[in-house]
């Protein structure tokens, strides 16, 4: 049997141009190095250019003079504490510039820090001792997982010590009856999901960077992803966690209970805190059973009004089996086509495309529902054309048209990314307005004299979450000024959120006021001061 299955694997390779994750930073140890290869292959403009230091890009941000300076004694202490040679990347007493580079910069090549020390503790106790020492010496730290963030939250700005979770990568327990998984922060999302797949369960979070990102980082940034529509946010799915406060206190809130009304729900503070009040070391998360029947359909639509109608129909008719409703505009799909060379699933070109996924327990039941839905949206003329995946190959190939956008854009140059929540009726208007604004300023064009290549929009329609991406030939202050703070003001007017799922990091730190009022910001600052009085946890970011 294996012979032809191998051949059919070859077939898959022929049809899906790349395995899903190969061009993302797959190795934890060298995320940026992989990204560099990616860029040098396709983008001659920026291939040899160094990434700009974040401290140069943000001249207003000054190194906090209260923080201690790393000494050889500190390094010796950490080496002694962590034992193994591979647990410390030492740029203080040796020249380790190349080894430090992947930890200093992000995969988008947008942020770059000056760290001279990376620590990779293996246990909660080690993290506790490291943080207690750093707190004592007032040494600033940056918690780092897979370093796949989009807002510069996981890379240092100045000489903060990077505490990388990659060596805390054990799955601790899984209970088949309740579906609760307990795992270390450094477990890679895809590894966790594969582990669960073998046990017929599913990690309730899925996103494009799953091959690299760590679940600790996912929780720390409250990542949303592709199936939030169905399974809800991490604030609901994370039942418990273990974290270490800056003074070394281990917060054991690793409850596996669904219900626990005893006092403040403190674990929620760490979810989405981006490592500013503590470092998450373990996570307990409730996982739903893996759907036995999954179907994927891909549509072309003539207008955003039709997209909204299709979404309403999908909710009404597919209701409990609907697991994703994703929106991609025509330009984004064209860029994926340009970058991958794959043949587009539909014959004609449409201004909007949607990807619908259903997951259920009974294939016949699901198919019946899906078919009547498809008949309806085709018959009513809501959907202009579409395809339905007939097998696993097509299923994955169709998903690539949505998941591959980020990667396609990164091949073509830099990207200004805005991840926003806006009330559904105006969701796409932002892309139109932004495009018009940049065109009027003469920044958008087809040849290299224009800084902006394209303004595209895509996102999680089901969560009113749009990704506005401005694909540029190189990062450029003029473009940035044209977009910011205009885009934030636009969102504020509509009571939207300037960061739906990517977080604040350094990129959106100063714009929090557009989505949170003064009282809220004040309360947040009080919390930060309470748990991290020396401010050593992920400084210069968040609030």
């Amino acid at each position, binding site marked *: *049997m294996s012979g032809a299955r191998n*051949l059919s694997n070859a077939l898959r390779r*022929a049809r899906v141009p790349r395995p899903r994750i190969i061009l993302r930073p797959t190795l934890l140890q060298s995320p940026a190095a992989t990204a560099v290869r990616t860029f040098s292959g396709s983008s001659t403009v920026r291939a040899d250019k160094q990434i700009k230091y974040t401290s140069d890009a943000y001249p207003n941000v000054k190194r906090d003079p209260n923080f201690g300076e790393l000494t050889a004694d500190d390094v010796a202490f950490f080496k002694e504490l962590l034992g193994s040679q591979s647990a410390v990347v030492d740029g203080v007493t040796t020249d380790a510039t190349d080894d430090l580079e992947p930890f200093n910069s992000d995969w988008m090549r947008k942020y770059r820090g000056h760290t001279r020390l990376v620590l990779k503790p293996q246990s909660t106790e080690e993290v506790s001792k490291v943080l207690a020492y750093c707190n004592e010496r007032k040494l600033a730290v940056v918690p780092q997982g897979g370093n796949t963030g989009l807002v510069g939250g996981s890379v240092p700005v100045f000489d903060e010590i990077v505490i990388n979770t990659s060596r805390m990568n054990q799955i601790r327990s899984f209970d088949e009856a309740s579906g609760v998984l307990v795992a270390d922060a450094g477990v890679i999302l895809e590894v966790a999901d594969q582990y669960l797949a073998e046990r017929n369960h599913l990690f309730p979070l899925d996103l494009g960077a799953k091959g690299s990102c760590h679940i600790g980082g996912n929780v720390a940034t409250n990542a949303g992803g592709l199936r939030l529509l169905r399974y809800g946010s991490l604030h609901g799915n994370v039942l418990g966690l273990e974290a270490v406060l800056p003074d070394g206190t281990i917060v054991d809130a690793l409850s596996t209970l669904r219900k626990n009304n005893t006092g403040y729900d403190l674990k929620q503070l760490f979810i989405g805190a981006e490592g500013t009040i503590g470092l998450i070391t373990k996570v307990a998360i409730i996982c739903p059973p893996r759907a036995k*029947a999954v179907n994927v359909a891909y549509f072309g639509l003539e207008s955003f009004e039709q997209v909204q109608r299709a979404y309403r129909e999908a909710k009404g008719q597919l209701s409990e089996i609907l697991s994703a409703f994703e929106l991609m505009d025509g330009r984004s799909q064209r860029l994926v086509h340009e970058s991958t060379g794959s043949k587009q699933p539909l014959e004609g070109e449409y201004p909007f495309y949607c990807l619908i996924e259903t997951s259920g327990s009974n294939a016949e039941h699901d198919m019946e529902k899906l078919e009547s839905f*498809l008949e309806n949206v085709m018959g009513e003329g809501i959907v202009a054309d579409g395809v339905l995946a*007939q097998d696993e190959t097509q299923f994955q190939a169709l998903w690539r048209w949505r998941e591959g956008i980020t990667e396609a854009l990164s091949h073509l140059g830099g990207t200004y990314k805005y991840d926003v929540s806006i009330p559904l009726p105006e969701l796409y208007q932002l892309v139109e307005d932004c495009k018009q604004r940049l065109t009027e300023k003469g920044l958008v064009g087809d040849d290299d004299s224009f800084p902006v290549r394209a303004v595209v929009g895509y996102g999680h329609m089901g969560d009113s979450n749009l990704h506005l991406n401005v694909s540029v030939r190189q990062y450029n202050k003029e473009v940035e000024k044209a977009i910011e703070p205009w885009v934030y003001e636009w969102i504020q007017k509509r009571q939207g959120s300037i960061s739906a799922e990517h977080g604040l990091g350094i990129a959106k730190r100063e714009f929090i006021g557009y989505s949170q009022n003064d009282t809220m910001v004040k309360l947040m600052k009080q919390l930060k001061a309470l748990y991290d009085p020396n401010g050593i946890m992920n400084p210069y970011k968040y609030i």
Partner: protein
Amino acid sequence: MASGLRILVPIKRVIDYAVKPRVNKAQTGVETVGFKHSLNPFDELSIEEAVRLRERKGPLKVENILALSAGGPKTPDVLRTAMAMGADRAFHIDIPEAGDGGPEQLTIAKMLKGVVEKENINLVLLGKQAIDGDQGQTGQMLAGLLGWPQATQASKVEVKDEAGTVEITHEVDGGVETLRAKLPMIITTDLRLNQPRYASLPNIMKAKKKSLEKKTLADFGVEDTRRLKTIKVTEPPARQGGGKVEDVDGLVSKLKELGAL
């Protein structure tokens, strides 16, 4: 004789190739219940090629594309897929699902011979093998039974003239071989032949209205007799996993431990 192409595309519903098959407890075959099934990938290629022969508008018009599959009550699923891709009509040869791999290839080939004769077929496009049984012999047996020329593992199919001359390219060790034959003939398909299309929604709808006839082996004068007996099915021995070392020192000591240094 060849006024137009009347193509027969026999197809098979198999466990989706992305699913890892599991041997059943009785060790008589693989578990099929509850696993995702789809059209055998090689058969997808033969349907696609039949539809492309029509779209190419070559010297011979395609009169009719008949998709056919033998199997249990779910078989119509793949026949509908075939019709959504462009087949005109379909035969479902009803065979009760038994979990024993179904009828033998010779039985299928004899049945296909019956279909070819009754339906006046002049070109049979088959996948070179089904990924469940990996037998890869139905096409050849059919050619033998009919006494027709056969071209296996085609990577290119071209109808040259109105007289029904067909040129087929297939890959051989160290190069490609080009064969020429006259209709009627048998062609089996290989991976490089084409890239199957997606079934579009309008075509899926249309496929529901196309004719799907239910038949039995007896309609073609064939009986499901078996010559082979499956004694035992087992999984290949599990591969020993690799190990991870922390650093260079770890690697060196591991290599020493294994006696490689």
